[in-house]
């Protein structure tokens, strides 16, 4: 039941992210709310298998609706969420507002690196006919995306805490 509710939450956010948020760009960047929510989950709130399953579901959604080669979002989301979960248990310590924002920032940076890294490997292996100037993209696209994601995380943090406590009470 809890997994179903979480999947429904992610699906609703996904619809908002593709249908609603593109009309409210912040300096040409859309906040990746789905990813911010996954990072929130990665701070030890759920069983690791559940977290990976939710990350897989989110990655599939992003890949299906992405304009770039299929699978890049999926692999990037899984790797970033695993990394943030690892850091949360071994480095960040007790989760609070600032730790969460730091986790989002670190996760966003790694997401971009993994994402463009996968696309570059697609280009080099000939799987997809794309051109990926990887360093230029990481510099140009990633910086503003990280800032936007952290800004969104700061706004969403109290709402996410409330929503997750309601969902966890329904398990």
């Amino acid at each position, binding site marked *: 039941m809890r997994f179903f509710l979480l999947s429904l939450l992610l699906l609703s956010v996904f*619809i908002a992210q*593709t249908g609603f948020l593109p009309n409210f760009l912040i300096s040409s960047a859309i906040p990746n709310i789905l990813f911010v929510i996954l990072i929130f989950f990665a701070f030890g709130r759920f069983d690791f298998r559940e977290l990976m399953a939710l990350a897989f579901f989110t990655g599939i959604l992003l890949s299906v*609706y992405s304009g770039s080669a299929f699978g890049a979002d999926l692999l990037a989301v899984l790797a970033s969420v695993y990394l943030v979960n690892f850091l949360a248990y071994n480095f960040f310590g007790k989760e609070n507002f600032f730790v969460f924002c730091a986790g989002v920032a670190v996760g966003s940076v790694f997401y971009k690196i993994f994402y463009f890294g996968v696309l570059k490997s697609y280009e080099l292996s000939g799987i997809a006919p794309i051109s990926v100037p990887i360093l230029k993209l990481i510099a140009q696209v990633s910086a503003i995306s990280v800032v936007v994601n952290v800004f969104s995380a700061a706004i969403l943090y109290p709402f996410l805490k409330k929503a997750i406590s309601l969902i966890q009470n329904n398990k």
Partner: protein
Amino acid sequence: MKPQKKTAIFFLFISISLAVIFLNQQGLLESPKKYASFLMSAPSKVAWSVAGRFSHFFSFVFNIKNIYIENSDLKNQNQKLLAENSYLGDFIAEKSILEKAKNIQAQENFSWQIGRVIGADAQNWSGYIIVDAGSDDGVAVGMPVIDENKILIGKIAETGKNFSKVLTIFNSSMKVAAKIQGGDVFGVVVGDYAKNLTMDFVAKERLLTQGEAVLTSAKDGVFPEGLVIGTVKDSKIKPENIFQSVNVKSELDIYGINKVIILTKF
């Protein structure tokens, strides 16, 4: 949970992901993807139309300063154009009859379908929008997509029964055969993931000036001739290169588009 077990679970999901990617490469996931997009199209349409109403108010508030600056620039430009217009008046009068005849003949060969934008890709750097016209409306993969000012948006990448995905010119897998207005300089326009357009394979001998129009040349057989891509921003000429590379400025605002025109026949 032990770190080793977490790592094992992580690699299990990575393996599943690689299997899914492999299945997609083999084309076995087309039906599920289309079905998923069909289910998402209705709520996306609602979200997009609701967002449009809110965004007009917010964009006005945030852009007041930009609107003032743009207004001043447009007034200056208007005065320059009025001066040019009086000089070119005689030439225009003579050519206008011939041009009108040519345009009418060209336009009569266009068949089109109007599509309403109902969504965009979840991450904006891949330049991708979704419209509510699909195969039931006569839309097919590869058809060009423009706006009402004949500015090139992109082409149809995927279709469902009542929706289509439009790959825009900013996507790096889109390559458009282009020319500089005047007809003697050709090249290929390519986007990148950061919303920049570059025109490659341009002859080095031709010196380009800022503001020259970049249009489709129809040499790729994909887009009709004369669709507006943008204007020349600047160019890079290196002595060791055979061609020059031109940065193209596009006025296209992908997320400000509400309706598109899909050229079903041209």
